[in-house]
């Protein structure tokens, strides 16, 4: 018979259960909430022996925690701009490593904080689910996140020392990222436009700062490409929020999906997807007499195919509970992955 424990969120043992520190031989798996606005001041956990959970090999856990499938939003855009800037020397390698470790840190911290704030109990589609399945304790994920973070700083530090102005880009990213993820009165999350900070941080700010680090200057096409990357990242976030709109609405969480409503958000997604195509069409157009024109044309064709499938999927979504809504984020990340892989390969 399954064993459960309910604890007050103010009790000292709550944090122990949450972080997995209450026992070495057992895991406390958070019980999903169906009543989205019932989080209240209690949480229920299922206590399971570690030996009763079929443990995946550690390398597989690390792989799933790392979220390779989201490289299309982080590492591959960084790599694309590095190659576009034409640099092949050690700064490129260091920047790629820094981006790799930063990616790992961000998503591991995301898993940890979602779990600590109880967000994972409201939606089964967030994060890697390793904590919720008992594969890793929250404290382990936290430690792994810090290892990635330290490695990101160590590999990124020489780049900052080489060009101290990079600090301004980093500061802008950190400020935007913080504003975008907080509900404080200065935060944009409460205004339901944290998608906009995602657009900036994974879009023009990312491509602009990488171009600046690599070549000491930023070109307009690199910023425009950043717009394309940022829009896809925003679409991904909005697609996720579309599928959790029912529970977010009932829990009082203000996302853009909740604010705009189902129909208007679908329209926005269609507009954004069309704009992504427009961005690549524009970039291809301005390359007309340049050496990269044919490469851009091939990428444009690939983008057209991917955008077509995305639009088809968006238009087929009939409600937030539908399977199309659930699968849209994965489709968007796959599309972005293939687009950026091709860009990366073509610029190499």
């Amino acid at each position, binding site marked *: 018979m399954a064993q*459960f424990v309910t604890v007050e969120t103010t009790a000292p043992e709550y944090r122990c259960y949450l972080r997995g520190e209450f026992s070495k031989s057992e895991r406390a798996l958070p019980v999903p909430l169906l009543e989205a606005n019932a989080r209240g001041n209690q949480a229920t956990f*299922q206590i399971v022996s570690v030996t009763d959970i079929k443990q995946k090999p550690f390398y597989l856990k690390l792989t799933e925690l790392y979220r390779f499938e989201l490289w299309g939003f982080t590492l591959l855009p960084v790599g694309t701009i590095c190659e576009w800037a034409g640099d092949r020397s050690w700064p490129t390698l260091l920047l790629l490593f820094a981006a790799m470790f930063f990616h790992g840190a961000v998503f591991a911290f995301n898993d940890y904080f979602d779990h600590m704030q109880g967000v994972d109990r409201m939606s089964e589609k967030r994060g890697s689910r390793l904590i919720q399945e008992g594969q890793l304790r929250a404290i382990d994920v936290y430690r792994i996140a810090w290892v990635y973070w330290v490695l990101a700083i160590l590999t990124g530090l020489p780049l900052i020392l080489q060009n101290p102005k990079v600090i301004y880009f980093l500061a802008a990213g950190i400020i935007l990222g913080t504003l975008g993820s907080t509900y404080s009165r200065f935060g944009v999350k409460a205004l339901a436009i944290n998608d906009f900070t995602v657009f900036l941080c994974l879009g023009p700010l990312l491509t602009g700062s990488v171009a600046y680090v690599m070549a000491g200057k930023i070109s307009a096409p690199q910023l425009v490409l950043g717009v394309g990357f940022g829009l896809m990242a925003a679409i991904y976030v909005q697609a996720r929020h579309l599928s959790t709109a029912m529970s977010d609405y009932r829990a009082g969480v203000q996302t853009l999906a909740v604010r705009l409503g189902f129909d208007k958000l679908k329209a926005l997604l269609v507009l954004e997807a069309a704009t992504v195509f427009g961005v690549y069409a524009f970039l291809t157009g301005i390359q007309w007499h340049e050496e990269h024109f044919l490469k851009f044309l091939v990428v444009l064709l690939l983008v057209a195919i991917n955008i077509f499938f995305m639009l088809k999927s968006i238009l087929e979504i009939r409600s937030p509970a539908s*399977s199309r809504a659930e699968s849209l984020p994965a489709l968007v990340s796959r599309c972005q992955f293939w687009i950026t892989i091709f860009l990366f390969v073509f610029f190499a």
Partner: protein
Amino acid sequence: MNLKVYAPDDFPSYLPKLNALYDDLFKHGKGFRSKLIQRISKYLQLKDDQVHLLAQTIEFIHNASLLHDDLIDRSPLRRDKTAAWLKYTPEYAVLAGDYLLARVMVNLSRYGNLPLIQLTAEVISDLLEGEWIQDSLIEDWDVSLQQLDRVHHLKTASLFKWCMRGPFIMAGKNDDELHKTLIELGSLLGILFQRSDDLLDFNIRNNEGKAILGDLKSGYMNSFAAFLTKELNEKKRAQFRESQTLEDVYKTLGEDFFFKKLEEFDQHNMKVISLYEHHLESLKKYLHTEQQGLLADLASLPGILYWRKV
């Protein structure tokens, strides 16, 4: 208890066919929800008219949803009889459902228990939301069990939550923490009931002789169907969708696979039952000594609702 009539002005006789329609509707129902109300109310020492009002309210809301459901789904039968929309007219079926909800509001507002009115209004709202979303899932063959649970939580579980909370509110027990526990219990009962109902579609523990594969033929993937087909390839899923009989299902999936998945589904739901029993323990502290018998009564419900024990 005559659930149909609480107030003298319930169901005026001058409205043509109204009483006949309701007599048909209430005649063959099991009245499980009103029986649950009566069970709980016994321990809270509610007066007869209070129990009557609660029982009528929940049966009216439930039957209103059935009238509308049958029309939306174009189901020809309800409880082995011709559905109201077909026997009378679709217009009468809609109006009859609306009329039941209106009588609920009239009788409750006359009684004057504001928290009960508020709870009832919320439940009706949740029910309609669940119905709205469920309609969008017709022919969505890839819907996940988790999303179905959210819909069922609105549609089915909301009524069970009302059954758990209504008597306590009527008894003047409005403690927040008590009601959080009642909400958990009601939610879990609702999920168990729905999943058991979904198994009937595949002739599992089908003592009441419900039509086989009715949901699938209507284009709706119920919770067990979603569970069965989760890991299948597209070809097998397409074949499954075309099934007209249980033999077709066994042929497509393999009988061994089918019953293995049934066992897994039952184990999955046994965890839900364990969670229910866990929350039932926490109800103890809100009950006086003479009310502790309620726990044993409530403990028997998963057996009745999920395992269909008579």
